[in-house]
């Protein structure tokens, strides 16, 4: 297997690791760090596909390495593992995720309560259209695979990216949230949802099988009508 070593201007270096049954990509990266080179830097936490911290580029595709079996992705017994695309490389397989999370904030990805703890709990019907739309997009684990796979991000550094816009879409559909118009304004600016070209790479590669392209299309619609009605 070859692993990216160094910062932005690094190179791929080759390692030999034993082939075992039921081995994930994260397992073999860990093997290198434990047995071949303890200076290898990479990031992981839960190892069970919940935390979203172990995403890397595996044979040209961004993947969650803890849930990706080597047997499924190795070509002729070989793996090439690099850091995620579209993010600054810190060292080896770790990227600086700050731009990714800063864009969550720019897209107003935080819930803004419209009530206090003194109010009664809001009743939300699970079968209401807004809740169905929010539920379809809610299971994001912030792994940045979509962000790394998006060429609109690559070509337009201001673009908020699939994950942040998908998050904004869930909040726009949350009736308890009190910042819809600010959020629509944020995602309707230059670099917002209208920059999306519907490549659908985000949908194709999302490990949670979410469809950010559909969420972004929803935002395009909502912001367009809000704009035409003079609300934003």
């Amino acid at each position, binding site marked *: 297997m070859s692993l990216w070593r160094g910062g932005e201007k690094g190179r791929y270096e080759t390692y030999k690791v034993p082939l075992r049954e039921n081995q994930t990509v994260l397992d073999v990266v860990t093997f290198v760090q434990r047995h071949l080179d303890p200076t290898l830097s990479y990031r992981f936490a839960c190892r069970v596909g919940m935390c979203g911290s172990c995403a890397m580029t595996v044979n040209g595709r961004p993947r969650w390495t803890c849930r990706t079996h080597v047997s499924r992705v190795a070509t002729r017994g070989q793996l090439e593992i690099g850091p995620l695309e579209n993010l600054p490389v810190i060292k080896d397989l770790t990227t600086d995720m700050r731009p990714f999370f800063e864009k969550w904030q720019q897209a107003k990805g935080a819930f803004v309560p419209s009530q206090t703890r003194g109010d009664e709990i809001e009743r939300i019907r699970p079968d209401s259209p807004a809740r169905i739309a929010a539920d379809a997009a809610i299971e994001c684990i912030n792994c940045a695979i979509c962000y790394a796979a998006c060429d*609109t991000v690559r*070509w*337009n550094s201001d673009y908020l990216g699939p994950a942040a816009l998908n998050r904004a879409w869930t909040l726009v559909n949350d009736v308890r949230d009190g910042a819809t118009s600010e959020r629509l304004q944020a995602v*309707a*600016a*230059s670099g*917002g949802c*209208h*920059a999306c070209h519907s490549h659908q790479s985000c949908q194709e590669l999302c490990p949670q099988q979410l469809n950010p392209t559909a969420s972004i299309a929803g935002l*395009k619609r909502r*912001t*367009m009508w809000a*704009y*035409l009605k003079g609300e*934003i």
Partner: protein
Amino acid sequence: MNVRLYVWQRLTAAVIAPLVLVHVVVIFYATRKGLSAADILARTRGSLTWASFYGVFVVAAAIHATIGVRNVLTEWSPLRDRGAGLLASGFGVLLFLLGARAVVAVVLP
């Protein structure tokens, strides 16, 4: 692209699509026995219908192309929003002027 440019881009697209269909049907009709200037001009000269058809077509296409070229420039050239907007607008004005001249050329009796 912000929501304002998006609305203009998609609105002009929606206007252009049916016009393109008519245009293609006319192309198929006009090429049935080869193009000739006499045939084309006999159809268009003095026709208010064709004048407005091509007039709307030129205006919508110029706006649509301007925004499209601007978006390509912002992504694929070192130009940023402002520079790309200026360059694309220059192209759009040229497109509009040439288009308006062409419409005048074929509809004026």
